[in-house]
């Protein structure tokens, strides 16, 4: 999966197209860690073009949402596709989505 990045100051947006399966979840983690290392204060994971989000992907989102939050920083999902929103609701994590 090719993850696109849009960086504006200390705000990072990661755009994930297609299937966020186990391999893509690993790639997402690498990108999130890179953003954190470069002092991102806000990371938006844009899932508008994602067709699928598995539990490995949700684990990455949850783990780094928590880590960022303890430092007063933000990691949230934005514009989830219908299938992704459904997966997040199914697992009880609608709070991971930016309001």
């Amino acid at each position, binding site marked *: 999966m090719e993850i696109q990045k849009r960086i504006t100051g200390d705000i990072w947006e990661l755009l994930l197209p297609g*299937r966020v*399966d*186990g391999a893509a979840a690993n790639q997402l983690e690498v990108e999130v860690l890179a953003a954190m290392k470069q002092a991102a204060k806000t990371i938006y994971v844009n899932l508008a073009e994602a067709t699928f989000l*598995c539990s490995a992907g949700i*684990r990455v989102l*949850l783990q780094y949402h928590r880590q960022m939050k303890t430092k007063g920083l933000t990691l949230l999902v934005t514009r989830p596709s219908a299938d992704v929103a459904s*997966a997040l609701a199914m697992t009880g*994590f609608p709070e991971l989505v930016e309001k």
Partner: protein
Amino acid sequence: MSKPIELILLNRPSEIARLQDQLEVFARERGFPSKDLHDIQLAVEEHLTNILNHGFTDPREHEIHVSLQTEESDFRIEVQDDGLPFNPLEHPLPDLSAPLEKRPIGGLGIHMMRKSVDRIEYRRADGKNILVLVKQIKVPIP
């Protein structure tokens, strides 16, 4: 009941993607609604990932036998593996009511698998885990 399509996968992550591609072809040829295909693929992803991550304690190559079949309005996918005995139906459900910061991360995959299909059947036979996922397809299957 249609003639099943049989696949043999190896216990490698790239094989899950290969199965997902086959599922997509199978579903599109039969006119499955996109939502039903998505749900099937999600359940399959979670189950196969669990097999690869937790099923084997040796570094050897293992075969995972998959069969795809339709029976009236049901789509059945049977997965046979020779890994450690594991019945996902006996796995405790995650507590979805706890606050986000306190929610345990484990158990989500099995929960998602259970929520994505209409029925799951499990048995252990001849040293193999045999899991059947059944999804009712909302349009007539030719």
